[in-house]
């Protein structure tokens, strides 16, 4: 693989070279590979599907079938920061719905929308494992907990600043 061309950075390509050897079968690396590829590329493009299929040794169709199962994997680009608001039961009891509505207004977008400047996407998500610190939001992989609309504004502001850097 190493000698072939790759669409990934040298670091990620090296990581993938190793990943497929960790398991009794190469295919076990498929789901992690797709997620790591998405982290670098932004989404699972056709080129990602093709290269991952080749690395794992399965058909592209198999890769597409698998990726469509997992809710974190996407086939379209989204904003730089994906604001994922949990509205599941524990968050709902502590203002998760209101927080989601607040984010919609603040960002001017709805569920699975992206702001025109490409900075934010918004998503209503299921339980993210922060139930005792509800309501909770994940921005990309970072957790923000015990939120209020006011503290949510601060969180959004921080990311907006980050985007400008």
């Amino acid at each position: 693989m190493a000698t072939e061309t790759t669409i990934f950075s040298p670091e990620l390509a090296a990581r993938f070279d190793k990943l497929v050897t960790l398991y009794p079968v190469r295919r076990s690396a498929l789901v992690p590979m797709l997620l790591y590829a998405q982290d670098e590329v932004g989404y699972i493009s056709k080129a990602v599907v093709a290269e991952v299929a080749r690395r794992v040794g399965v058909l592209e169709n198999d890769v597409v079938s698998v990726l469509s199962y997992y809710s974190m994997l996407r086939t379209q680009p989204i904003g730089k920061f994906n604001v994922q608001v949990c509205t599941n039961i524990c968050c709902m009891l502590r203002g998760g719905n209101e927080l989601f509505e607040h984010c919609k207004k603040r960002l001017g977008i709805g569920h699975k929308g992206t702001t025109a400047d490409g900075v934010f996407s918004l998503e209503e998500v299921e339980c993210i494992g922060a139930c005792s610190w509800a309501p909770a939001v994940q921005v990309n992989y970072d957790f923000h907990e015990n939120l209020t609309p006011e503290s949510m504004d601060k969180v959004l502001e921080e990311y907006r600043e980050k985007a400008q850097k």
Partner: protein
Amino acid sequence: MAYLTTHPDVVPVVSYRFGKGATNIDRYIELDGYKAARKAIEMGPEAVIAEMKASNLRGRGGAGFPTGMKWSFVPKQSEKPKYILVNGDESEPATCKDRLIFEHDPHSVIEGVIIAGLAVGAKMGFIYLRGEYRYLLNIMEKAIEDAYAKGFLGKNIFGSGIEFEAVSHTGAGAYEVGEESALMESLEGKRGIPRIRPPFPAVVGLYGGPTVINNAETLATVPHIIRMGGAEYAKIGTERNGGTRLFCLSGHLEKPGVYELPMGYNLKRMIYEVGGGIPGGRKLKAVVPGGSSTPVLLPEEIDIGMDFDQVGKAGSMLGSGGVVVLDETVCMVEFALRTMRFYQHESCGWCIPCREGTDWLKKSLTRVHAGGGVDKDIDNIQYLAENMLGRTFCPLGDAAAMPTIAFVKKFRKEFEDHLDGKGCPYKHSLQHEAVLA
């Protein structure tokens, strides 16, 4: 950062290294780390399993299956390699405890996997984390690397001549993948669709080999049991329910949080003393005692000990240890609907009773909540849910049906109050455009 909350009644066993820097392997060793694995090598497989049986540890993933017994089902001789699989998918709403273990004490999971491997003769373990837990995957990867560097993992662990490899693995968003057979499918790089049983994973599991699947908290508890002895551990809990567990208190409480308490701890006390009671002097309306899939309890039903048997006797389940407290302002129809929306969304679609059942239930609950329901809808909801029970390929169908049946049975009047155009009497309730669309 996720943290443990303290209270005088807390008994720190699994959590005893939390907040003490134990992600660092040297610190973990200072805090008695990897002693249990060495001890287990000396003890040999049979003695380890006997100790596990004596501990009365029951699985913390939800079903409460006795861990020692589960391990003893693995055949001694096997042509195919055996495996240990850690379930860290943690996706049942109200559950946020495994996260604390991965964050504060990752080596305890590795040590638990090694001991499980020694007990059943497996040479490889996988630690599967839900995709959302990326920061924990980084912690776990580092911990595994450090354990290899010390010779605690690899071809010759602790100089014993025994081989054991461990690999951490990430999912990519799917509740169903927490179901043990779907978990194996996912780890094999496939869609997370459940497998028919029998054969059970202990006989035919990952890559066709005998496999032990345990929840992360279950395995993190194992080293403590080996260190302190099964009988000592059992003493902390109640009959047939050994030790402690991490209870995740959430909802309308003054002090929600994750608390490690003895098995059998009184639920009422958990809510009013440990969790600080309900804010604003409001009245208690209901408690979901063990994660979103467990039947709701009424205020007069909560004077019970929180172990698998006592909660079972009260008509619910201890489940994954997520205790959700609902005060009098909650609309139970909305709560039932939100619960069902989750299961409908997460149903893998493989079997019809679950895929269609959850969808119909969501639609019916939506209609009732919005005021468009008629009397017959309530009976239909109950009928549908009852007919899903035991008829789905994996227990996700039960997880959706059981709480629904209890909501209707225990709060029927509240469902009726929504009917015939009246709609939700709880004004604060937000309508979900996405659902109603």
